[in-house]
């Protein structure tokens, strides 16, 4: 809410926005967040409505939503932010010298900055009769009103154009009871989004709903009746088809007349640079009217990315570039699932994976190039569209997934939501996010009421998918179904957090190359936006520092999450749990006796055996921790840390009649060698003494299986939310080899993975081949990696010993009474 006085407002810079649509208003919203009082803002909108969700015009036409449902910013929003709103006024002139715009009715406004968000206009075929009554396009609320009016009085509708918009219009008119024929010039529908088999399937399902099609038909003109209203459409081949209503949906053109008349450089859109600035530095352009690197986008996700960048520059923050977007398409016709993204045609150098079930009405095609997904088209079953799109956008190496790729994400082992993966079939009270207890209805309501468009927004407002993230795909589906065709996609390269635009890789490189040793140094060097970061970036930076410069960079306890600061796991009631280390899961009567004594002495409420072959003391008071550690006299189990957790073992050849190797001793050796190892995320190991694999090594970060002739090493397993089976890395002969190869792999992971990236996700990103090349093919590199790990561990101390016996950081465990 703007609380400033008129005098204050008079001294502000003047921002004028021409165009009152989604991209423009989103820019204002982002700007108001960044610099609330910077501008005195005036908005001109040619339509008589405040900003509404244009994507949802199709459901309005189909009678599934009302105009009020799709209003994004009611007039009160403009008033609350002291924005002068001129509705129904079309700007016809920009005077760049006088820095002023003028509307048709003579309304003038001066500007210091001008934002052009004029959008696009439908292309109208230049054929005779195109100006008859009853010939309209499908662009705004007025068009929808005209269609709804026509549907109640007339019978025959013809939609010219079998693209996305045309089919949505046809569907809406059909739902309104009209007899609808879609006329299309091309050989199949939606040829820019679909290949022929998919389009045929789509056509078939629409025909089943009652829609008619005329393909390969070139419209020659409209035939008018007595009262000047259209009565039929005539084609070049001489055929005609009766029509009381003709909807032209043959494409859109960026609205650039205004910009062109002001002498701004336009080329299929108002040409802008990566900061959304036009050739006149005082004038910016966003949305469908803007041409960025030769592309004018027509989907909401890229437009919102543009809005964010433009707002940042208008707010004079001067950071952020718009690098262009990858887009995907969904058809908003109820009952028809269609998804298309990227290069779905394929061609030289690409491979296609196909799935076709004409009876079941399912067709899927995935196009791969260089082991990456580059495009896809799906009809009938699009549940995994968001997942495929993420793989495509992030350029992930999918060679390991190839066998299962076609069958979707759930096929790759996904627990926690009982296979429910279709947002549309869910009722409002069904739970989506099991971690935070968020139901579908909560998410839909938040999206509607708060006008959310991005996954990040939904996470912030509802917490859905903000914890373990396994329901992300489902949340994206709900978002797509509720807010419109597509949602804003996260950028390809991830910045560390909101405090910076730098990526994890850039930060790591800077730390290494410039010998940065403290968090303030990193933040100053990399121009962090916040004075001392946030709870996301500080732990990451602390890890990068201590892992890059062991013994030199000092650990910063205040940048550690509480568990790693207290060296115990915080529980829901604020108490802690203590898990002492038992090497290789092996213990002694003396240790068990000490654990029992401690449990009694400190009245520990729960004693539990963990999944990692150790014993957990739960419900410990924080102030008791140092004394408990002293009494236990056992090493820290690091069960609380992004660190080496356990090395699980089976009994092995010492006792087991099937055992071929001494797996217990191997586990103990590994655990002692890598003890105290911090890592980007938790690290779990296991060793089995024979292929019966009782230690479950296939779901560990590093798993070792003893065979008669040596040891097999597997990497990248995970038993969490999504079960991931470890991949075979190498077979070695001796126990020393096991240490060296495992250690080299772990050090590579420590040096290259992003903070909070598990080994499986690191491997997904870089590919197993790369890891093999680095540590199998190059013995010197392998030994160097192992050497660096051994050095890092040699300077690390047991945190429990330091705190229990040497009084380190005593304040952490003291309480005061006043």
């Amino acid at each position, binding site marked *: 809410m703007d609380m400033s006085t008129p005098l204050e407002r008079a001294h502000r810079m003047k921002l004028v926005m021409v165009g009152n649509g989604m991209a423009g208003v989103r820019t204002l919203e982002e700007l108001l967040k960044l610099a609330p009082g910077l501008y005195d803002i005036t908005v001109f909108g040619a339509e008589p409505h405040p900003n509404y969700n244009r994507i949802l015009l199709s459901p309005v036409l189909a009678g599934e939503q009302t105009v009020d449902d799709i209003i994004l910013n009611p007039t009160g929003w403009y008033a609350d932010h002291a924005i002068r709103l001129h509705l129904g006024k079309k700007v016809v002139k920009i005077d760049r010298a006088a820095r002023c715009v003028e509307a048709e009715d003579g309304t003038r406004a001066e500007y210091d900055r001008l934002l052009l968000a004029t959008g696009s206009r439908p292309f109208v075929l230049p054929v005779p009769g195109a100006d008859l009554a009853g010939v309209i396009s499908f662009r705004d609320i007025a068009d929808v009103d005209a269609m709804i009016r026509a549907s109640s009085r007339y019978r025959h509708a013809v939609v010219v154009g079998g693209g996305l918009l045309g089919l949505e219009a046809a569907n809406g008119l059909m739902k309104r009871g009209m007899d609808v024929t879609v006329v299309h010039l091309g050989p199949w529908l939606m040829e820019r989004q679909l290949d022929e088999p998919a389009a045929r399937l789509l056509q078939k399902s629409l025909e089943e709903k009652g829609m008619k099609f005329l393909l390969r038909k070139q419209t020659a003109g409209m035939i008018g009746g007595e009262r000047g209203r259209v009565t039929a459409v005539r084609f070049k081949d001489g055929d005609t088809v009766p029509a009381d209503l003709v909807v032209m949906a043959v494409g859109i053109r960026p609205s650039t007349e205004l910009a062109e008349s002001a002498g701004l450089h336009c080329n299929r859109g108002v040409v802008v640079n990566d900061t959304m600035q036009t050739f006149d530095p005082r004038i910016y352009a966003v949305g469908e009217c803007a041409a960025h690197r030769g592309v004018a986008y027509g989907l909401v996700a890229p437009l919102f990315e543009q809005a964010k960048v433009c707002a940042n520059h208008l707010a004079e923050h001067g950071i952020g570039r718009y690098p262009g977007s990858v887009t995907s398409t969904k058809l908003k016709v109820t009952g028809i699932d269609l998804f298309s993204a990227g290069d779905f045609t394929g061609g030289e150098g690409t491979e296609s994976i196909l799935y076709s079930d004409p009876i079941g009405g399912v067709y899927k095609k995935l196009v791969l190039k260089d082991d990456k997904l580059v495009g896809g088209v799906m009809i009938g079953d699009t549940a995994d569209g968001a997942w495929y799109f993420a793989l495509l956008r992030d350029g992930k190496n999918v060679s390991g997934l190839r066998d299962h790729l076609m069958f979707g994400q759930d096929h790759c082992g996904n627990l926690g939501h009982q296979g429910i993966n279709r947002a549309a079939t869910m009722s409002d009270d069904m739970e989506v996010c099991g971690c935070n207890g968020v139901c579908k209805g909560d998410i839909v309501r938040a999206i509607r009421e708060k006008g959310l468009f991005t996954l990040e927004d939904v996470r912030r407002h509802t917490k859905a998918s903000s914890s373990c993230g396994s329901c992300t795909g489902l949340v994206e589906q709900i978002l797509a179904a509720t807010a419109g065709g597509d949602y804003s996609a996260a950028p390809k390269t991830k910045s560390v957090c909101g405090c910076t635009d730098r990526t994890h890789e850039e930060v790591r490189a800077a730390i290494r190359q410039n010998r940065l040793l403290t968090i303030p140094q990193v933040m100053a060097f990399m121009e962090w936006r916040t004075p*001392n970061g946030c709870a996301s970036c500080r732990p990451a930076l602390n890890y990068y520092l201590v892992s890059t410069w062991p013994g030199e960079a000092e650990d910063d306890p*205040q*940048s550690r*999450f509480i568990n790693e600061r207290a060296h115990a796991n915080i529980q829901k009631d604020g108490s802690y749990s203590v898990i002492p280390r038992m090497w290789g899961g092996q213990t002694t009567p003396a240790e068990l006796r000490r654990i029992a004594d401690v449990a009694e002495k400190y009245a520990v409420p729960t004693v539990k055996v963990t999944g990692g072959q150790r014993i957990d003391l739960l419900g410990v008071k924080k102030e008791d921790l140092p004394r408990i550690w002293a009494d236990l006299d056992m090493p820290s189990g690091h069960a609380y840390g992004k660190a080496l957790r356990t090395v699980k073992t089976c009994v092995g050849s010492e006792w087991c009649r099937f055992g071929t190797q001494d797996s217990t001793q191997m586990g103990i050796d590994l655990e002692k060698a890598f003890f105290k190892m911090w890592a980007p995320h938790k690290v779990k190991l296991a060793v089995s003494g024979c292929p019966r694999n009782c230690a479950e090594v296939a779901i560990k970060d590093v798993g070792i299986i003893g065979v008669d002739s040596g040891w097999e090493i597997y990497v990248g397993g995970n038993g969490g939310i999504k079960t991931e089976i470890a991949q075979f890395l190498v077979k070695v002969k001796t126990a020393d080899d096991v240490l060296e190869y495992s250690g080299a792999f772990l050090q590579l992971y420590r040096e290259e993975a992003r903070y909070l990236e598990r080994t499986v996700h690191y491997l997904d990103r870089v590919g197993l081949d790369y890891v093999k090349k680095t540590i199998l093919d190059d013995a010197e590199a392998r030994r160097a990696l192992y050497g660096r790990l051994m050095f890092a561990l040699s300077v690390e101390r047991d945190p429990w010993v330091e705190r229990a016996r040497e009084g380190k950081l005593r304040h952490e465990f003291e309480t005061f*009474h*006043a």
Partner: protein
Amino acid sequence: MDHWKDIFALADIPPLGARVVHCGGVDIAIFRAADDEVFALEDRCPHRGGPLSQGIVHGRRVACPMHNWNVELKSGCAVAPDEGCAREFGVRVEDGRVMLDLSTIGRAAA
């Protein structure tokens, strides 16, 4: 003024850290920002009662260790879109000592 009680030295709290004081049946978290300004809040996150004192302090906020809600140190209120506030108490630094305003605690306990 006698309702200001000397608790401990400023140096007893690490910068960007917190200490807990039990006082009048309330656990009070005292935070120290990077510029040595101190803040006092009830040690209960408005979300599910997590101990804010155990969170990571950044800028003028603390991130709750339980579910990562961000709470403003000055007002005790959760950062939007989250809602709810932790009680705030009067606190100041005098000659390197942290002084707590007992009168605000009495009011809170009442």
